[in-house]
Structure formats: C-alpha cells, structure tokens
C-alpha cells in the first residue's frame, strides 16, 4: 500500500518562525526611513498612499488596528453599504469597485468590496503597512519641521504601565500624513507641544463639509499633510456624515500636494 503524499510540503515550526521574523525585519529595516509615512489606514490614508506609491515613492502606512480600512468597511449605523456623492464614484470606477446609483448624485457600494479593493490597490501600488502599530509622537527637526513619527505596538498602550513599560521607536520620513480621522492624532500632538492650534469639528453638515474637507486638504505644518476627517478637526470644519467621497478625494489631494512638494525639493 503506497503512502499518501501530503498536500503541503513539510516545513518545521522553526522555519515558519524564521520566515516571519526575517520577512518582517527586512521590511521594517527598509521602512524605518521612508519618503512618506502615513498615520492611519482609513480611506483617505489608503487613497493617499496608493496615489503616492504609484509614482514610485517609498510609502509606509501605520495603522493602530490589526485590520486596515478604518470606517470604510461599513456605512452609517453599522450597515455595510458605503455611499459617495458625485464625483466620488469616478474613483470607485478607477479602482474597479461596483456601485449603484441611489438618487441623483449619490452612489452606493458594498462596504467589504469597496474597502478590500482600496486596500488591494494600495498594496498593488507598493504601499507597505505596519499594522497593530500606534502613533505616539512626532519627530521634529530644525524649525519644528515634522520628519517622522514615534510609534509603539498597539497592545502596549492597552496594558497598564506597571506591567508593560516598553519604550517606543522612531520612524523617519520626508513627509508625514495625518489620516487619523476626527482624532487628528498627529496634529493634536503638535498642539500639545504648542506648535499649532486646532479648532475641533463643528456640527454635522454632510453637504458642505465634504467640499470644505477637500479644499482644506494640504500641508498644515512643514512636513505634515492632513487628509480626511482630520482636516475637519484641524480647521474647525463641519463634521462629516457617512459619505466617503471626500475621504477618497481628500486622500488624492493630499497625495498631489506631497508629490508636488517632492518635485520642488
């Protein structure tokens, strides 16, 4: 009786571990210094990362959760349909995300499909990710130029300090993008240091806030570009509702700003 051949090639546990460590370390060492460091892997961060990386720029996205995509998986009230207002659907088309017209000027897509396609587009463009990694502080140089971020493992932050006292590490980059949503973590850190002052977002006003968020996307401080909902917090704009067009377009605008600045440098 012949012995049945296993489906998978036999590999020992230690080889699996070595592969994980080596793969992670190789990428991490390479990306300790990047051209663009994006804090926050939601729709605006992913869109910015995708557009920047498409131009061959070395881009790393730091995401505090295990999963990438932020709120783009679901729409309002935990329902997994996401909406975009015109012209946001053009980006859905560009990324190959199916959508339907809801009413004039409003389009609806399947959240999981839209989010996974956007993540895949960012990966395909060459973006690398450091997930389960939380932003801790900014790295500043002469003239308070932002040129990196101090990060730590997310679980470290969740544990009492008496149990885990783990020092963070620093990542350097030519540009840092704050795509951390309404928290605007990077901008807030600069505020804590007295370098700039944010306004906090106003009441929800979907129709106007989307335009304003895109129009205000840009460099908030030397070396720091703000995209997505963090823009509303930084400049005191009305709060956004569950439509994602502005997140995608703001990410794209942020990428354009960085690419233009890189050209000038």
């Amino acid at each position, binding site marked *: 009786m012949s012995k049945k051949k296993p489906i998978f090639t036999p590999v020992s546990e230690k080889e699996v571990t070595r592969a994980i460590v080596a793969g992670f370390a190789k990428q991490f060492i390479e990306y300790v210094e990047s051209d663009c460091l994006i804090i926050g892997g939601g729709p605006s961060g992913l869109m910015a990362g995708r557009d920047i990386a498409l131009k061959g720029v070395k881009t790393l996205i730091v995401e505090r959760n295990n999963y990438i995509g932020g709120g783009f998986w679901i729409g309002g009230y935990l329902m997994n349909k996401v909406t975009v207002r015109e012209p946001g659907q053009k980006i859905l088309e560009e990324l190959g995300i199916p959508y339907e017209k809801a009413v004039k000027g409003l389009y609806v897509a399947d959240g999981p499909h839209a989010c996974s396609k956007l993540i895949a587009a960012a990966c395909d463009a060459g973006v690398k990710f450091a997930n389960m990694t939380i932003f801790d502080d900014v790295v500043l140089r002469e003239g308070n130029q932002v040129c990196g971020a101090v990060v730590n493992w997310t679980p470290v932050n969740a544990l009492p300090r008496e149990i885990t006292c783990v020092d963070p590490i620093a990542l350097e980059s030519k540009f840092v993008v704050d795509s951390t949503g309404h928290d605007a973590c990077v901008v807030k850190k600069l505020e804590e240091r007295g370098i700039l002052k944010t306004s906090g977002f106003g009441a929800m006003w979907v129709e106007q806030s989307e*335009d304003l968020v895109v129009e205000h996307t*840009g460099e908030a401080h030397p070396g720091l570009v703000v995209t997505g909902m963090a823009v509303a917090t930084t400049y005191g704009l*009305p709060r956004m509702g569950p439509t994602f067009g502005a997140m995608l377009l703001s990410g794209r605008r942020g990428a354009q700003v960085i690419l233009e600045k890189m050209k000038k440098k």
Partner: protein
Amino acid sequence: MNDFIHHLPAYVDLYEEGDLGGLNLQNLGRYLTEKTGVPFRSQGNIYKKCSEERLEAVAKELAKIKVKDPGKEFALGVPLQAEIDYERRRVENPGWKVFGILYEGILYQKIVSGLIFESGPILDRCSILFTNQLFGTWDWDNMRYHARVSLYGFPSIISVVGLVEAPAKPKEFYIRKRMGTPIELLREEYQGRFLEHGDSRIAEVLKGYAMQAFLFHLTGDPFCEDRNCRLFNSHWQEEVLHSQMESPYEFCPRHEAFLKELKDRSSFSSLSYSTREVGRGR
C-alpha cells in the same frame, strides 16, 4: 415704518462674490431702478481690483473671522496657513462654489466695506454685495450664532446661500430629520415649501431683500411689519416665500406710496444727505 430719508443715493452699486448660481444681477438692478428710479451699476466681483498684496491681506483677515463654535461668543482666531491658503484661492477665483464656513457677519461686512470704500462709506451710493458665502450674527436671546440672509449697512450684504440655510424650515422637518428620516425623502415630501440651492425662485426672492437694503440706505429702517409686504423681516422659509412670491400685493400700501413718491423725486434729482422728509409718516 421710518420714512425719513437720510441718504438718497445717486446710484445703486451691485457687487458680487463667488458663484451666485446663475443669478442675473442686471435683472435685479433693473428691478431696483424700476421701483426706485435710482440707476444701478453692476460693479462685478468685489475682489477684481485688488492687488496681490491686498488679496493676501484680505485672505488673512477672512481666515481670522470664522465662527468655529456657534454656541460660543466670537473670538478672533489665529488661522493656520492652510486656512489662509483656502481663503486666498477663494478670493482669487470669481466663480468659487464652495461654502459652508460661517463667518462673523459684522466683521465680514467690515472687510468688504474696506474693499468697496477706500476712505469711509460714500453715502451717495447704495452698495449691495451678493455673496455665496454664509455669515451669522450673535443672538443675545439664545446666546448663539445664527446664519443670516442679510446684514444691512455700508455696504449691505446679502447671502444667496443664506437664503436657503438661514430661514427655518417647517418645524416637523427638523423633528423628522432628527428621528432619522432620510433627507432625500424629506426634500421630496416638503418640495416647494422651502428654498433649495439652485432654486429658480431665488432670483425673485432676492428682489425683496435688495429692496430692504435700499430702504435701509434711505431711512435706516429696512423692514415692514406687514407679512404681505416684500419688506417683511421673515424668519421662516414659508414667510419668505409668502412675502416675496405669494402675497396679494408686492408692497404694503404705505411702502407702495412711499416708493412712488421716491421714484417721482428720483427721476429728476438725486440728493445726498437729504434732510427733507418724503413719504408720509404714520
């Protein structure tokens, strides 16, 4: 009604700011001239004569006067560079469409006054700015900022988008919106009961507000207590539509007579700083 004429202007000067949604200021000007006998001049975009340096200075001023929390009294802000850049792009672009920032109305008026009048108000011109931006004033009764359609003064400013956003919609609209009824559905149900952006009725409604601005220049009193008169100070959308489009007459008999006498007078003379009383008192 105050019908003591302080300043009878030689011209009505109409200025514009941003995308006014196809509003024809020539038609509006012709209407004012027809009603008052005072010729109008369309002065175009308010920023068109500004130098680069002036535009930069104006952008900085505008960025400082954003009302960021309508529930708090206003304090001058220290704007970030991106806020100044936004204003700079806005004032440089005559067809700027984006709005949604609430500016402090009195300070906004002061800034545009500085653009129109180089050395203090010129009272022989009634200057009116039509803008696509929103401004508000602090209400001491309920201690918060409210968006306004108009702010009369030198110049008077009238917000085309304020016409949609400032006067209140029917009460039940807000209750149902708060209860989660989709806005698209509400719009369909309440269609016609309030103005919307791009609404074809806006051009007609603005005529009444322009007349209020003119009356303010003349007498200091832009309003009428008669809800059927175009000079009625409406707080609800339904009042706006009624007084401007659905009332049995355009102006109340008193204002009608006042305007008739004014027109007769304007057709042969223009007086600055007139102290003569025209019209009939109460």
